[in-house]
């Protein structure tokens, strides 16, 4: 990615994007209005506000007309000179219109010669910057979105592999197992008692039947099923808000890292200061007073900026805190200079209002510097090196998210298991006992009772023996679909024989994708390809012929999405090509 503001000698061209200008104009107009309201002016405040309102609307119309005119003339790009010419023209026209307005509305502010400098600043700096940044805004957002995605992936991975998370995992799973064992043990004990009672078959059956409803196990299964669906689905809006929240939590860390590794040049600090503060000086001071007051300030800012740059380059322990202090100090310099100057020689019209010099300048300067710091192109491209760590706040958020995903996925797995294996077997046992009683078959009755007791003695046995090699796991998930749809599998020999607990996670992800493709997409043909990716990861490509295209962006996050996020650390996506839908996922297959 090239620099946002490449050197003039490289003769760069920029897309003429006016999207940010209306917002910039409104901000500027509000700021100017505030300055003028605070300053002594002839005429009423109402007249001033009226003038500013008309001026703002006219400016917005002027911008819209200019954009249209340029596009009609097939002018879509411009270099620095073109941008300056455009900026000065727009700022000049705006100024002329303002002057015209003062003939109709009784407001007299300052000398036109002062305005000349303001037009120059607006035309050479503000308008070109707004156009350049506007043209690269989508690129800036894209880079940040990519960064956020990578950061989340790495943070998820780190958290998933951390001893703390492994402990959480074990305790959640152990809790479920303990409950299942306890309920099964209670049921077995009750059935043992029936078996040992010296009563006839009918009486034994009457005692056994209510127990075989397995109410406690059913309640456990239901509870787990509810837990797997307990978290409300998150809307797209919710996801975006979440994303913004995560990024804002990350901002401080990002700024600190970038300030240390890509500090702004002293000229950038000085230019921002000049552009921010000079218009006010021009407004409040005569030219001779300006020449007297501004240069010392400019030199001080430049010296302090050099100091900031030097401190950050040394990258000491407290370098960011020290630089922050100096940035704030620069923001307060106009206030300090004005206060000292007024003490020495009081001139009413050059007395800055406190709100302006004591609040707006320091705050505005501080935030402008931070914004420019994190949007430094060099810094943005460095993001791709994944040198940035997640902030503690981000880690906490992701940790909570991953724990929830794990809880839901494991609860779902156990709920299905208890329903499908244990409760089904209890129901079948119940039927078998009834049949035995009807046939007066004591042997079958006793054998059936013994068989269910064996299952209840070790209720987690089938759950634990539930994974084989990667290939057999995928086949076990795909084969059952044959007949309903056509499924093909292409698995690379280097990964086919991998066998570890992660294989089952992989199987669940594949099942989620296939069932989603068939049930929601109406697919009839699905191909699955599994290939190694690096030493520890695999890449999965599922291509289908879904009739109902699955949305590229998931507008709601359900259990399925959470399972995919957990398994792949969020590294999955969907794309459409003509009549085909492709699902791509990368996951670690060795570590657990």
């Amino acid at each position, binding site marked *: 990615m090239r620099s946002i503001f490449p050197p003039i000698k490289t003769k760069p061209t920029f897309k003429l994007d006016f999207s940010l200008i209306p917002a910039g104009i409104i901000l500027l107009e509000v700021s100017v209005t505030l300055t003028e309201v605070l300053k002594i002016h002839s005429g009423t405040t109402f007249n001033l506000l009226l003038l500013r309102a008309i001026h703002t609307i006219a400016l917005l119309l002027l911008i819209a007309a200019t954009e249209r005119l340029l596009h009609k003339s097939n002018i879509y790009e411009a270099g620095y000179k073109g941008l300056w010419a455009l900026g000065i023209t727009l700022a000049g026209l705006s100024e002329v219109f303002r002057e015209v307005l003062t003939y109709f509305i009784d407001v007299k502010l300052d000398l036109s010669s002062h305005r000349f400098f303001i037009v120059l600043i607006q035309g050479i700096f503000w308008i070109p910057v707004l156009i350049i940044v506007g043209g690269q805004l989508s690129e800036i957002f894209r880079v940040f979105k990519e960064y956020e995605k990578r950061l989340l992936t790495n943070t998820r991975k780190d958290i998933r592999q951390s001893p703390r998370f492994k402990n959480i995992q074990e305790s959640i799973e152990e809790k479920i197992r303990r409950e299942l064992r306890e309920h099964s043990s209670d049921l077995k004990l009750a059935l043992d008692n029936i078996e040992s009672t010296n009563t006839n078959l009918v009486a034994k059956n009457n005692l056994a*039947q209510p127990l*075989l*409803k*397995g*109410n406690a196990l*059913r309640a456990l299964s*239901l509870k787990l*099923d509810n837990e797997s669906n307990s978290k409300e689905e998150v809307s797209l809006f919710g996801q975006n808000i979440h994303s913004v929240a995560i990024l804002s939590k990350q901002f401080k860390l990002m700024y600190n890292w970038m300030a240390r590794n890509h500090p702004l040049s002293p000229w950038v600090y000085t230019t921002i200061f000049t552009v921010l503060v000079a218009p006010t000086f021009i407004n409040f001071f005569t030219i001779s007073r300006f020449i007297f007051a501004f240069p010392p300030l400019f030199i001080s800012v430049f010296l302090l900026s050099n100091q900031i740059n030097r401190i950050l380059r040394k990258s000491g322990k407290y370098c960011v805190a020290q630089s922050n202090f100096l940035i704030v100090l620069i923001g307060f310099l106009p206030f300090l200079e004005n206060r000292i100057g007024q003490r020495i020689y009081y001139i009413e019209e050059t007395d800055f209002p406190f709100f302006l010099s004591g609040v707006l300048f320091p705050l505005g300067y501080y935030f402008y510097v931070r914004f420019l710091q994190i949007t430094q192109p060099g810094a943005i491209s460095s993001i791709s090196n994944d040198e940035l760590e997640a902030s503690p706040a981000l880690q906490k958020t992701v940790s909570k998210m991953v724990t929830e995903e794990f809880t839901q996925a494991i609860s779902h797995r156990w709920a*299905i298991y208890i*329903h*499908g*294996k244990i*409760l*089904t*077997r*209890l*129901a*079948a046992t*119940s*039927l*078998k*006992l*009834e*049949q035995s009683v*009807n046939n007066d078959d004591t042997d079958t009755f006793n054998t059936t009772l013994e*068989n269910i007791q064996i299952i209840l003695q070790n209720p987690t046995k089938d759950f634990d023996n539930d994974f084989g090699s990667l290939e057999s796991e995928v086949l*076990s*998930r*795909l*084969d*059952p*679909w*044959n*007949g*309903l749809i056509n499924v093909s599998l292409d698995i690379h020999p280097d990964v086919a024989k991998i066998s570890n607990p992660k294989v089952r996670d992989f*199987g669940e992800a594949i*099942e989620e994708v*296939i*069932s989603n493709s*068939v*049930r929601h997409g109406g697919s009839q043909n699905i191909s699955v390809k599994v290939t190694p990716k690096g030493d520890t990861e695999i890449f999965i490509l599922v291509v289908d012929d879904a009739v109902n295209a699955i949305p590229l962006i998931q507008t709601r996050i359900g259990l399925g999405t959470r399972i995919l996020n957990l398994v792949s650390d969020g590294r999955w996506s969907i794309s459409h090509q003509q009549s085909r839908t492709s699902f791509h996922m990368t996951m670690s297959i060795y570590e657990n």
Partner: protein
Amino acid sequence: MAQTNLRVMLVEDDEFTRSTLRSALVAQGLEIVHDAGTVKAGLEAAKSLRPDVAVLDYNLGKGPNGIDLANQLRKFQPSIGIVLLTAFLNPAELDTKISQLPQGSRYLVKHSVNKIEVLVKEIQEAAKFKG
């Protein structure tokens, strides 16, 4: 015993449950034309044997479930009766999924099948569906 001429197919992945259901239904006078443990086997059998009613387990283990199978069966045999068995105590727990069941399908909580007459009655009801 409920005398009936209905030809029934059974698809249930748990072997013990399947054989128990089969013997109980046979004892009730129903003709079990085929019992299968997988969707694939069930589909193949249904294509050749054309049963009147298919009794399907909802949870068939990995892969498609009973509702997926029911929808497929209806594609090539629109009049086939469907009875879906679930381990859920309260069918309302299955509400969202029930809506995906083909028209005229019946569903039954597995535990209530211990009185096999209940299942037979549902099979008879399902058989009334004419497509």
